[in-house]
């Protein structure tokens, strides 16, 4: 028996959460150190697992299955492919960064930071389980269970309206969860009808479900994922949560945890309900394009920096969903790659805005102005994070956005053309924000604003380095993703569009061979 890499990856942060919770209260620093240590160890394990997929070195990572509830055919079944690997890598990277960013934020109201750090690790463990689960019941359970620690993280630490935001977050996701629960049961019934009761994903994918039933089950899953992602018009919980949660928490929420929704679409919905996915794709594509434009326009109209970033996420999630439901290899690979890049970029944005908020004690755009003068480095990283948000090449966000647009163009031309408006609007919301907060005459209130501190540099430096390095050398990651996307699209049964003027034939004709 080989080393259970995947279970270990989940067990480490879970154990870390327990250990952090056991730290005696009043010893906040120790709790933070324990939690950050656990997150870093998880990062190391995650990196070792990634090596196998990115650089073709056999580390002995393979699927793991242990009995769970054999009566129902439910098992602790984990596996990893390029798609899940990308998200696992994002999660293990983001957690220590968020922990470090949260170092002081958690103490703003003299609250014991212990709970936040324990909950953060708990969410990490649950998120990782969701990305690795090969059992639909297991996926459902962690999908739902994740809400509880996130609820407390939003509700206990954050702005004045945090309780409202937390409840709203919970209510929305609860509705989606219930719909998904019904669909999970329905799916199970299908497997019983087929004679082999199972929650094992490959078994369920192999089922031949009639189209009508597929539609109902599709709707159940999609509602849950569309709320989580979030897709217009199910998005209104996100801006509130983004605004009220602490910046680091908002970063983790929209950067990592919400990716479970888009992951569910590509890894569960497409292979489980191929006919319904194909039929519904045009509708989802329209919703995705609306999200892109709507989110961007709303971002332009915001006066609260954190809400603004929240709305940019809605726009970017629109791109991700668009790429998934364009049903071409290029777009789907782009969308999965986008999930990682959006994670890095949005974490960077939230975290830097957090630096600003902690200095000035305000989230309002109008309370800033001319910050580049007293704090040039802070302004620099803010601009950098913003440029990654507007997908400037060669930062990694660019390639994913281009792959989504061009991959969509292969099948849904009008949608792709409208989506390109997003590249103008994103420049507008980012650069206008930068102009209003960082440039111009120095506002009296920001005079003497301290520049980046060492801990803050440690938080943003890895994000910046990754956005640059992955931007220049995306191939190992996109290859791993592409390899997993191919079979998924085969399940859906769509054909890749061929080039209209194929070069090979032409070259053959031209040279008379």
């Amino acid at each position, binding site marked *: 028996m080989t080393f259970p890499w995947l279970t270990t990856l989940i067990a480490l942060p879970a154990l870390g959460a327990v250990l952090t919770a056991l730290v005696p209260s009043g010893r906040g620093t120790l709790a933070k150190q324990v939690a950050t240590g656990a997150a870093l160890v998880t990062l190391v394990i995650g990196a070792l697992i990634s090596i196998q997929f990115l650089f073709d070195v056999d580390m002995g990572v393979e699927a793991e299955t242990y009995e769970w509830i054999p009566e129902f055919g439910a098992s602790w079944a984990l596996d990893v492919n390029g798609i899940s690997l990308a998200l696992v890598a994002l999660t293990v990277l983001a957690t220590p960064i968020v922990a470090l960013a949260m170092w002081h934020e958690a103490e703003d109201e003299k609250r014991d930071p212990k709970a936040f750090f324990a909950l953060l690790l708990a969410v990490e463990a649950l998120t990782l389980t969701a990305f690795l689960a090969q059992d639909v019941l297991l996926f459902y359970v962690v999908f739902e269970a994740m809400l509880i620690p996130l609820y407390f993280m939003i509700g206990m630490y954050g702005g004045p309206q945090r309780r409202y935001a937390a409840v709203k977050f919970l209510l929305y996701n609860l509705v989606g969860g219930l719909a998904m629960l019904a669909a999970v049961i329905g799916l*199970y019934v299908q497997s019983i009808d087929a004679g082999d009761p199972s929650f094992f994903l490959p078994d369920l994918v192999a089922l031949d479900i009639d189209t009508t039933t597929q539609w109902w089950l599709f709707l159940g899953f999609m509602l849950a994922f569309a709320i989580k992602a979030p897709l217009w018009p199910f998005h209104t919980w996100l801006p509130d949560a983004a605004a009220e949660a602490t910046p680091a928490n908002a970063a983790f929420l929209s950067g990592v945890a919400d990716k479970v929704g888009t992951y569910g679409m590509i890894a569960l919905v497409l292979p489980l309900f191929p006919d319904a996915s194909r039929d519904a794709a045009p509708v989802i594509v329209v919703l995705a394009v609306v999200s892109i434009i709507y989110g961007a326009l709303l971002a332009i109209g915001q006066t609260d920096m954190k809400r603004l970033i929240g709305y940019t996420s809605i726009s970017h999630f629109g791109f991700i969903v668009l790429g998934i439901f364009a049903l071409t290899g290029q777009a789907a690979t782009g969308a999965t790659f986008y999930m990682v890049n959006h994670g890095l970029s949005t974490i960077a944005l939230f975290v830097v805005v957090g630096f600003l908020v902690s200095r000035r004690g305000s989230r309002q755009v109008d309370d800033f102005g001319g910050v580049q003068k007293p704090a040039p480095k802070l302004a620099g990283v803010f601009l950098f994070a913003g440029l990654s948000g507007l997908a400037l090449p060669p930062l990694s966000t660019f390639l994913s956005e281009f792959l989504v647009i061009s991959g969509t163009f292969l099948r849904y031309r009008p949608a792709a053309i409208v989506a390109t408006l997003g590249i103008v609007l994103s420049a507008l919301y980012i650069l206008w924000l930068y102009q209003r907060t960082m440039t111009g005459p120095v506002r009296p209130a920001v005079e003497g604003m301290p520049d980046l501190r060492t801990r803050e540099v440690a938080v943003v430096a890895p994000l910046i380095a990754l956005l640059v390095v992955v931007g220049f050398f995306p191939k190992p990651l996109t290859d791993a993703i592409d390899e997993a996307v191919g079979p998924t699209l085969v399940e859906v049964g769509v054909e890749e569009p061929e080039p209209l003027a194929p070069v090979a034939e032409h070259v053959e004709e031209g040279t008379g061979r």
Partner: protein
Amino acid sequence: MTSTLSALATAVATEGGHGGGQAVAEATGVFDLTWLLIAFPLLGAAILLLGGRRTDKVGHLIGCGASIASFVMGVVLFAAMLGEPSDGRAFTSQLWEYVNAGGYTVDVSLLLDQLSISFVLLITGVGSLIHVYSIGYMEHDERRRRFFGYLNLFVAAMLLLVLAADYLVLFIGWEGVGLASYLLIGFWQHKNSAAVAAKKAFVVNRVGDMGMVLAMSSMVLVFGSTAFDVVFASAEGASTGWVTAIGLFLLLGACGKSAQFPLQSWLLDAMEGPTPVSALIHAATMVTAGVYLIVRSAAIYDLAPDARTAVVIVGAITLLMGAIIGCAKDDIKKALAGSTMSQIGYMTLAAGLGPAGYAFAIFHLLTHGFFKANMFLGAGSVMHGMHDEVNMRRYGGLRIAMPVTFITFAMGYLAIIGIPPFAGYFSKDKIIEAAFADNWITGLATLLGAGITAFYMTRLMLMTFFGNRRWKQSEPPHESPSVMTAPLWALAFLSVVGGFALLYFGAGIVDWLAPVTGEEHHELPMPLWLLITITLATVVAGVAVAWLMYGRRAVREDVPAGSPLTVAARNDLYGDAFNEAVFMRPGQYLTRSLVYFENRGVDGAVVGTATAFGGLSSRLRRLQTGFVRSYAVTMLGGVGVVVLAMLVVRLP
């Protein structure tokens, strides 16, 4: 693999008869070091921008060194190319594989050929001169190191743009120069006007980028690739509709970057940047990237006459618009910016003429790079001596106080208005010839443009260097230090001999570029001597009118009311007013109503529905954490339902 494919591809291109393709060889020897061109300035930028204050003292030297190293490398490569046969001067070197997604593959590879080396020499040559000039110009700026870092970043990105062998890689350079332009226009960020101008430039360019992204998406759809070799070789297999669409999308991108109508509005505002930036980025190099794009895409445009017509129309409109705007500006930099728009309009128009014009577009692009950089740096020298005054109504008689600036500027002046044997005469005259050979209307537009150019440049010359002195400062303006005047001399020299040398040195630029752009000659509808005479007469007329208005009469210090056309030209022909009325105001209205709708409508509907279904909103209001307990119960209940359901369905 790549090389065989490209060899085959070019074989097809040659046999197909369009846009004279030449065999592209895999780079060996010194050609394999093409990447160094980009690496030097990129390294320079990295050192200067990440090195912090430690590099403050030597920052400008590192910056200049990086640019000069790249120029030397360019000269070495150029010399090596001269040693190759004239149809074997294209070399491709693959650096690394960029991406492979769903069968769409992109390599980061460079293409060094006659067209790209011409740009390399312009960018690094003029670029290095401007780097040196900036040592003096930015001497008293505490952020000089950062300025040089941005300049190096620009040079690296611009070189990537012209050396890329794939549209996607070209686009990386394309956006890179856009970023450098943004950073440098807004270099004096504490000025609101600079920050706004920088943002405007970036956003307008992004509108053009939509065109670039859609052009590349179309290429992926039609050819399955964005690599030059594949696209150019397969272009004939594509339908005219698609080729035209790609041509128009590329044109949109070119309009953004090259400030062509209707995306011209950002260039005049971009003069907020330090003057060396205006010279390098917003006159000599970056703004010509659109022309490069069109000429590089010759294989596409050769097959799309409608797209070419659109290019000609855009060029003609812009060349007249820019010239008219240039006539009315009192700000010396804005007058030159209008002129830049206009001259790029000439290049665009020439590029739209197809193989008959491609080489002339590049020819004019190069000479324009010399004389416009010369004049912008000259304007910077004037500003340097005049405490950053830009209003020409407060200049006058500066030829005595600043003789070097005057003489070098005069060389640029004679070049741009097209007096033989100065550089602009040869290049502009070729475009006018090609335009008349194409049709009368285009020809007349270029001829009229030449007349207006002569007018506004003479006006600028007279207001600045001649006439009564209108400056108020007590001590007379001083001539700039030699670190600034030396580049002026060099550029003035190029403004004098550049045109003649490029046209007649060796086989001349037309033959040099022919393997890349193809060559065609159309018959003129009149004898050549007649056209040249008419052109020169028009130029002389323009000079004469300007002299009557600004030379014989004293220049007024206040701004006269002016005719409606003058007023319109002062307001950039209402480009901004149009954008504001058509895009900004409705956009603001839309955004505001959406925010309102979002807060009242969408959110309200959801909360309202919740109220309707079981008074959830009352719980929302109470906001008890107790809610979570009930949620946990709900979830447990949910799991219970699952268990129950499973038991029920399993029992029988």
